[in-house]
């Protein structure tokens, strides 16, 4: 049926203007869809890429966020030695982190926003090998390091800057990357220094460990349960922890889906309009094809195909329009800690596939009634049309 294909494609070129306008409508829908989904995907990927399946976080019971978790040193000391976690010659690899929220101005002088300061020890780097600091620097005393994406979103976070938070000034001595993981949106400070500064001596927010095996999570929790000191703690995988923090993404997906649906209605009506005109203009052609012996079904499929083709082309254009946002940096509010998380728009091949699919679907659905009208029209009525 290559000839019928040619027939439909060439007709698209005959009515260039209406084809292009319909195509542009579909392209807009697909582009909006992709940008929203890229946003959601970017947020989701923080949760999906942060930590690895074996990494676990230990928090105070009754909280699901580092912000509101407090672990006294005695409990931390004991938890460190419950076993089941990865070790090196220096003992179990356990990072004791203190999580503090501070406020800093934007680079353009805009309203200040919250961000995360993490008090860390050397172990923080052992458990997170993905964290790579320029020149291998470590926070020490008043020297601090800053996630590179974050440094662009706040003032005073460039290397060499002095920044004031807590009770004093700190020196930014380096930027770090972390493969897009959540740490990139944090300022890392020497743990004892920030404990003193924030009046939180002898306490941390969380412990990060790496399990020997995934099944060990349950055993670890049972072990914590056994001692009075650690009874107040619980462990969960880092993946699960961050998934719980990316509710914005789910909301975006729902809202994005809804917006796409509404816009699709418009684009679908556009396609319907175009196809009704096409079917009307080609009535005699349709009658002729029927007289030659082509069935109603062939006519239906042919016009559906023509409409779907516009949709697909629109979808492809939409993908092209949306593609440049891939990798674009932006920030989102973490609704648990009310801090800013930097992330990049992320367009995956699967999303492009869905975008194309939406385009084709909008075209096919919009073209359905006109195609049906073309197929149902009696031969004689079609032939008599001028």
């Amino acid at each position, binding site marked *: *049926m290559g*000839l*019928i294909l*040619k*027939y439909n494609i*060439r*007709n698209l070129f*005959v009515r260039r203007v209406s084809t292009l306008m319909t195509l542009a409508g579909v392209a807009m829908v697909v582009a909006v869809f992709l940008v929203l989904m890229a946003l959601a995907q970017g947020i989701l990927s923080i949760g999906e890429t942060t930590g690895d399946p074996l990494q676990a976080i230990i928090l105070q019971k009754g909280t699901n966020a580092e912000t509101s978790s407090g672990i006294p040193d005695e409990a931390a000391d004991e938890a460190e030695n419950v076993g089941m976690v990865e070790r090196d010659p220096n003992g179990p690899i356990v990072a004791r982190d203190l999580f503090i929220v501070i406020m800093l101005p934007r680079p353009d002088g805009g309203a200040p926003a919250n961000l995360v300061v993490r008090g860390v020890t050397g172990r923080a780097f052992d458990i997170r090998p993905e964290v790579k600091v320029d020149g291998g620097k470590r926070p020490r005393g008043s020297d601090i390091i800053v996630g590179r994406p974050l440094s662009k979103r706040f003032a005073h976070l460039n290397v060499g800057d002095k920044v004031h938070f807590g009770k004093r000034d700190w020196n930014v001595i380096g930027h770090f990357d972390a493969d897009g993981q959540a740490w990139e949106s944090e300022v890392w400070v020497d743990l004892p220094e920030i404990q003193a500064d924030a009046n939180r001596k002898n306490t941390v927010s969380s412990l990060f460990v790496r399990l020997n095996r995934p099944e060990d999570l349950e055993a670890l929790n049972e072990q914590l349960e056994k001692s009075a000191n650690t009874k107040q703690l619980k462990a969960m995988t880092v993946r699960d922890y961050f998934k719980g923090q990316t509710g914005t993404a789910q909301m975006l997906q729902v809202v994005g889906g809804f917006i796409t649906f509404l816009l699709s209605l418009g684009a679908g009506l556009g396609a319907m309009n175009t196809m009704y005109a096409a079917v009307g203009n080609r009535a*005699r*052609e349709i*009658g*002729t*094809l*029927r*007289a*030659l*012996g*082509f*069935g*109603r079904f062939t006519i239906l499929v042919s016009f559906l195909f023509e409409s779907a083709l516009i949709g697909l082309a629109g979808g492809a254009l939409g993908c092209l329009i949306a593609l440049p946002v891939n990798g674009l940096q932006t920030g989102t509010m973490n609704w648990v800690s009310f801090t800013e998380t930097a992330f990049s728009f992320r367009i995956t091949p699967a999303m492009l596939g869905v975008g194309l699919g939406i385009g084709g679907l909008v075209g096919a659905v919009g073209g359905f009634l006109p195609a049906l009208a073309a197929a149902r029209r009696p*031969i*004689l009525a079609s*032939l008599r049309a001028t």
Partner: protein
Amino acid sequence: MSDALAEVTGVTKDYKRDKQSIRVLEALSLTIPRGDFLALMGPSGSGKTTLLNLLAGIDQPTSGKITVDGKTITGLGEGALAKWRSRTTGFIFQLYNLIPVLTAYENVELPLLLTSLSRAERRQHVMQALDIVGLSDRSKHFPRQLSGGQEQRVAIARAIVVDPVLLLADEPTGDLDAKSADEVLTLLQRLNREFRKTIVMVTHDPKAAARATRILHLEKGQLVETAA
């Protein structure tokens, strides 16, 4: 097999318009022998096109029976009728009805898409049909690049490409200048004589009708025979 290619027996055709029924053909009977070149004349609105459409199987009579090449087509289902049309009849329209976005070659190839012929076989048939109408050199031209007479000849090639037993032409020269009309009529005559095609042609033009072997006049739904 009988001598008659088509047999129209007691055919009545009513059209409904604005809830009113109008009788276009009344108890009409007609035998078309094999190899006939029949010209159908008559005043406007007398039902010539209607009769042609019935013979072509693109319309169904209200009552009566039509048999073509031994097959009764009245009462056939839509699908069966479409299939029958694609094999048995070739239709030539007054306004050619070529598909504008397809080349002459592709227009002629269309009916062959409904057969099981291979691409190469289709090519052979298309080129042969274009050769018969004298337009082999125009196969890559689009309808808008052809004159009216050439368009009609491409349409004739399309009508004969499946080698149907019955050709039906509704005022095939109605839109053509005298010279082009003459070429088309000569072509139809040749199809009738050389290729033994049975042809029914509706025309208003006595000169065109004179090229046929037999002329019938349709008047108020009835047939009147005249010697050619």
